[in-house]
């Protein structure tokens, strides 16, 4: 009898422990969520405390764009004491993975997105983003066409943060000391590369380990060969047919550059940080990267002699190509959106609109030298801009056309994964150009 009582007690205790372990969280969450939902809805109306969850792809909150984002969040909380903003920030790849998990389980209220088919198509299909009213942004100074990537069937689902321009950063002092000139043609670029190699330096630091910078390089070359082929790229991705000769020509030019030693040894396995370090510590004379890295000119971790001499030029023209030197590889990539199922959607949209007020993202971005905004930044010029910032303004001012979304982001994710992997193989010669084009075509199907 004693044993039976003991056994029953043990069973009850363990079952209770199990149920509290497994069940209490669930029920607590459920209660919290229900209570939270009700109180949040009430709060929105009454102006009482609201918690906004922001999911960001900018984990560095003390430098660059992450700093700008954080400054705006702090401003918003100062101006709206009843609002608490919780930020969860992950770097790009981890961000995209968790974004997918959130899409199944409930999105944070404000999220970073990319206005590119490789990301946005699948996201919009899942209907996880709230529709925005385009007319609300008529006075926000968005550059013409910059909202296009964030629209589907005429409806707006997000707002672009940047205008990204792909350039060759170069060290002007090293160029002057060695009598090197900014190349005007692609052949001159390769000749310059050989001269830099002879001088014992790395010509161009390339983040080949990631694949996407080389895919943008390919986009840059396509633009210089054709003068503009975004429709042809879309058609090729739709049909999976990359037999158009200019795809082959552009890929061959990329392979030619790699063969000629334009990039550092082992470029195809070196990551973003390594490539950047080669340039910022003076081992490489040039660095192929986007305008979002223009904050290098203000980064005090970089030796003053280097950071004050950083300048940029765009991909030189290709002999026989239709593209001009002023046709630029540029696009509006990263941006923000609001979750369709946000319990505080109204406040989230209010915060989104606050971020994009001309004196926020654009102004702070400009002041912190983090590249070009998707909005008009001219009102915020102070006359104290870095030479690199002026360089980018000049590039954008003189631009006669832009490439739009880079080729790797024009198709579905499977295409993006394939091209970013296979471009390493084709550039290092382990795969032929024809095989490369066949394989990326197959990935579209």
């Amino acid at each position: 009898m004693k044993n039976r009582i003991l056994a029953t007690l043990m069973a009850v205790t363990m079952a209770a422990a199990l149920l509290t372990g497994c069940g209490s969280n669930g029920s607590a969450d459920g209660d919290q969520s229900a209570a939270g939902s009700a109180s949040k809805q009430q709060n929105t109306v009454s102006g009482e405390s609201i918690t906004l969850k922001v999911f960001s792809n900018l984990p560095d909150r003390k430098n660059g764009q992450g700093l700008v984002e954080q400054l705006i969040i702090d401003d918003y909380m100062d101006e709206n004491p009843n609002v608490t903003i919780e930020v969860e920030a992950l770097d790009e790849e981890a961000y995209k993975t968790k974004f997918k998990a959130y899409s199944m389980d409930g999105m944070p209220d404000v999220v970073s997105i990319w206005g590119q088919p490789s990301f946005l198509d699948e996201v919009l299909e899942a209907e996880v983003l709230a529709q925005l009213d385009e007319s609300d942004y008529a006075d926000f100074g968005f550059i013409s066409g910059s909202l296009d990537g964030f629209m589907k069937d005429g409806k707006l689902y997000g707002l672009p943060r940047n205008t990204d321009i792909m350039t060759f950063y170069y060290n002007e002092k090293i160029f002057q000391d060695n009598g090197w000139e900014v190349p005007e043609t692609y052949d001159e670029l390769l000749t310059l590369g050989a001269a830099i190699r002879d001088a014992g330096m790395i010509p161009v630091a390339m983040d080949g380990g990631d694949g996407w910078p080389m895919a943008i390089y390919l986009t840059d070359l396509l633009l210089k060969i054709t003068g503009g082929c975004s429709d042809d790229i879309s058609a090729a991705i739709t049909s999976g047919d990359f037999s158009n000769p200019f795809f082959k020509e552009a890929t061959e030019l990329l392979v030619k550059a790699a063969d000629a030693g334009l990039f550092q040894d082992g470029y195809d396995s070196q990551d973003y940080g390594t490539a950047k370090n080669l340039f910022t510590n003076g081992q490489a004379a040039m660095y192929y990267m986007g305008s979002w890295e223009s904050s290098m000119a203000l980064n005090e971790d970089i030796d003053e002699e280097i950071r004050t001499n950083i300048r940029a030029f765009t991909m030189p023209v290709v002999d026989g190509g239709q593209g001009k030197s002023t046709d630029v590889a540029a696009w509006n990539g990263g941006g923000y959106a609001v979750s369709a199922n946000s319990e505080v959607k109204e406040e989230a949209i209010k915060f989104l609109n606050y971020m994009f007020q001309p004196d926020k993202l654009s102004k702070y971005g400009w002041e912190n030298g983090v590249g070009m905004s998707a909005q008009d930044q001219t009102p915020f010029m102070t006359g104290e801009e870095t030479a690199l910032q002026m360089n980018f303004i000049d590039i954008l001012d003189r631009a006669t056309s832009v490439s739009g979304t880079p080729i790797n982001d024009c198709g579905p994710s499977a295409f993006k994964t394939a091209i970013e992997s296979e471009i390493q193989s084709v550039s290092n010669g382990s795969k032929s150009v024809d095989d490369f084009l066949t394989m990326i075509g197959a990935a579209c199907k």
Partner: protein
Amino acid sequence: MKRLYSNKMVIITLVLPAILVFLFAILAPICLSVYYGFTSYSGMGEAAFVGVDNYKALMKDETFWLALRNSLLLAVGFICIQHPLAMIVAAVLDKLQGRAEGFFRCVYFIPNVISVAVIAYLWKFIYNPDFGLLNNVLKLFGYQGKINWFSTENAIWSVLVVLIWHGFGWGMLIYYTGIKNIDPVLYEAASIDGANQKTIFFRITLPLMKPVIQVNVTMAVIAALKQMETVYLLTNGGPGNSTQFTANYLYQQAFKAFKYGYGNAIGVVFIILCLAVTVCLNKVFAEKEV
């Protein structure tokens, strides 16, 4: 107490947590994987049933076979290089005695204590053709060229070296523990009979270590098949797919290419492979025991 343990209620309550964990953390995900393997699910939205299309595509997928080949190559590397070395080092450590034994035991185990992320970045720098330690050491010996350790031809071997080096400590420690558990009387008797160190190793240490070897080798093969984090951080399968491994490829397909259904199909094949390899290894060792 005996009656307590024979009470069905007690048995059920003691076994229930383990059964629930198995059901919800192992069996249910496997069943879901099998289900999603038959769909074209992208990870978001609706999952459309596509029958065995994913498996058909997988059979024709060159990258999958390349990844599987690399995983098996790693398993061979573990069995033929890492484990014999680990066993020899364990045997030598056992003979060292005193402070040296403890010191070297720690030294060999250090790589296992360091985070995988640190290990990966450490080796990235060691292998760097421009400023890496390896090329600079070669320079000291008069070699003036730059070896690209992560070129398409070299990358898989460079990755294997890191993986074999990284897992060495665990293998060594398990063998070391196995050796320590051998009754010293056997060694004394063999010495009295005039056996030398080589004979002692092959006639006493090795046969008595068979159960340890079985466990260690099975674990090593499974570790090779599910190798992911070091490769992901070191090369992410590149350049191209030259260092692609099955688990990394699964991750890329499911979470980068948004081919969640296809990724699950790889997962299912992967589970079958792991089970088959484990069964085969158990049979091999069982036959030898007879």
